[in-house]
């Protein structure tokens, strides 16, 4: 059979439902592809030993006519999302050996839908990074150029889909960690509205920003997966109860009636010329589909990265205080057992110092500083107010009748491995176009729009209003159907 993971999700659904392929065949083909390709890519940190059994179960449901939209489809899961009985490490030594008791809500929903969990994918430790170089398992590589990063922190999931190892994948996005790797790898990635998807079982980085997001080879696949995991959850107090649909009524490529704004602050200096061309092509596609495209302004954009890095690191310093060697994960520095040479504070410090990588330690320290006595108001307090200004910029545009914003996802294509490791500010600046939607809690999708002159993927980003995923998907499909070079075929 043709490489199954390059099929669009609707193509796979049709083949499964019509009996032209089985979930077991599809799953085995994906696992075979992992065996052949992942040695040099490093996308997966472990495979699910139950995958084929889950596929057999799915095939039974399909035969009995009880299949849903996700039944039988293999999905890769970022390793900061809990999978019951399958080790989950968040890319960190501090969680070595941790086996969750329960599935994260999103994984439970996948299983109830009959999807197959293929395996766990690599990430920057605890979601902190933009390159998937900060992992205890080593880096993941970009399949378009092995000397380049896939982006991060959900690099493994992006590569799983880009390299045809899985048709669908789950990631997480706090400041761009689904959208940026999607852009660097040439696949579709979406971060939903904050609260659209339950965070229960997602290992926390920054609780007011974290969201589970999805990767797919095409827009319809992303919509299918996001729809399947969305919905209010009693286990997540911040999850929303809503009737607002995730998917549009149809995928017909029409964009009549949509007002699309391109914020001038996102297309100025610092943006790669090739990517600028890609944004123009996306704008032309939307116009051809009937949308009205105009220039707009988000005046507080330049304050978004510092705002984000103060809030996210402050929340991270709090969330990561639970890693102390007492109840789960690794332990060191205490002399072992109930006695021994060390004492409890030494155990805490030893566990954390040895267990956390340098980027995580850097962010914990920055966050601790921002929250510390004497600096709290000047840093964290100020950042919370700046966040309000960033949110208001968007609200004003949406109140005026703009439906969507069209922007680049990243200022450059994928950079080289090692290039930004000694330059934290440089690394943080690669998030300049993605942190704003995170701060504002808005849905944002990254869509491939072609390749640069050097053959590297480039992407545009569509940012929607609160709970406006259906409009985002509608516009994204309109662009995708008019531009060549989408990632999926429909055999």
């Amino acid at each position, binding site marked *: 059979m043709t490489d199954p993971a390059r099929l669009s999700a609707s193509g796979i659904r049709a083949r499964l439902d019509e009996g032209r392929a089985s979930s077991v065949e599809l799953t085995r083909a994906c696992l075979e592809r992992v065996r052949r390709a992942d040695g040099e890519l490093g996308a997966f940190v472990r495979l699910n030993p139950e995958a084929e059994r889950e596929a057999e179960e799915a095939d039974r449901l399909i035969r009995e006519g009880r299949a849903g939209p996700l039944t039988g489809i293999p999905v890769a899961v970022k390793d900061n999302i809990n999978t019951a009985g399958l080790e989950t490490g968040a890319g960190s030594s501090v969680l070595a050996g941790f086996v969750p008791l329960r599935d994260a809500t999103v994984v439970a929903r996948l299983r109830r839908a009959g999807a197959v969990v293929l395996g766990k994918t690599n990430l920057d430790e605890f979601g902190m990074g933009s390159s998937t170089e900060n992992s205890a398992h080593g880096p993941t590589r970009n399949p378009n150029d092995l000397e380049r990063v896939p982006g991060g922190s959900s690099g493994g999931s992006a590569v799983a889909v880009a390299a045809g190892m899985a048709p669908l994948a789950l990631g997480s996005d706090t400041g761009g960690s689904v959208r940026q790797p999607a852009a660097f790898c040439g696949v579709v990635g979406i971060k939903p509205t*904050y*609260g659209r998807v339950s965070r229960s079982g997602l290992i926390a980085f920054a609780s007011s920003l974290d969201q589970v997001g999805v990767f797919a080879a095409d827009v319809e696949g992303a919509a299918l997966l996001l729809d399947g995991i969305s919905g209010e959850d009693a286990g997540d107090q911040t999850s929303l109860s809503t009737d607002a649909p995730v998917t549009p009524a149809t995928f017909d490529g029409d964009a009549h009636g949509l007002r699309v704004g391109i914020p001038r602050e996102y297309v100025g200096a610092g943006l790669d010329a090739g990517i600028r061309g890609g944004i123009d092509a996306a704008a032309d596609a939307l116009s051809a589909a009937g949308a009205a495209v105009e220039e707009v302004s988000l005046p507080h954009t330049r304050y978004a*990265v510092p705002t984000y890095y*103060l809030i996210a690191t402050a929340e991270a310093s709090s969330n990561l205080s639970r890693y102390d060697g007492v109840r789960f994960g690794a332990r060191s520095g205490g002399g072992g057992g109930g006695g021994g040479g060390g004492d409890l504070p030494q155990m805490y410090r030893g566990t954390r*110092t040895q267990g956390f990588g340098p980027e995580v330690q850097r962010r914990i*320290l920055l966050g*601790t500083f921002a929250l510390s006595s004497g600096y709290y108001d000047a840093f964290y307090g100020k950042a919370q107010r700046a966040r*309000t200004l960033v949110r208001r910029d968007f609200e004003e545009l949406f109140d005026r009748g703009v439906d969507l914003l069209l922007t680049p996802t990243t200022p450059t294509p994928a950079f080289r491995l090692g290039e930004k490791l000694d330059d934290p500010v440089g690394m943080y600046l690669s998030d300049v176009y993605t942190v704003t939607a995170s701060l504002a*809690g808005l849905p944002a999708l990254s869509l491939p729009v072609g390749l640069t002159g050097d053959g590297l993927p480039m992407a545009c980003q569509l940012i929607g209003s609160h709970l406006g995923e259906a409009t985002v998907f509608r516009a994204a499909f309109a662009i995708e159907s008019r531009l060549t070079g989408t990632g999926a075929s429909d055999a």
Partner: protein
Amino acid sequence: MPIDEREVRHIAQLALLDLDAQALERLRRELGSILDYVALLDQLDVDDVPPTRGAGTERRLRDDTESTSLAVAEALCNAPDSAEDHFRVPRVIKG
């Protein structure tokens, strides 16, 4: 904003991280340059702007009804060191 060694040591103490001399100096420099960058926010007048607490969404509470919680064995299953019904740790009080 330059940050001195004493401040970095203090924050590391708060965060329960041990830093050797090399790490201390490296982090002092890195944090200094990050803080220089976030000083951009000094340009903003936010006196009349309310803070966004959390994600700015409403907080809802569940009903105050009893539900099941973890069994003891489940709670201990990932422990680096445990006995019967508790986690074991090095002594807290030197005696």
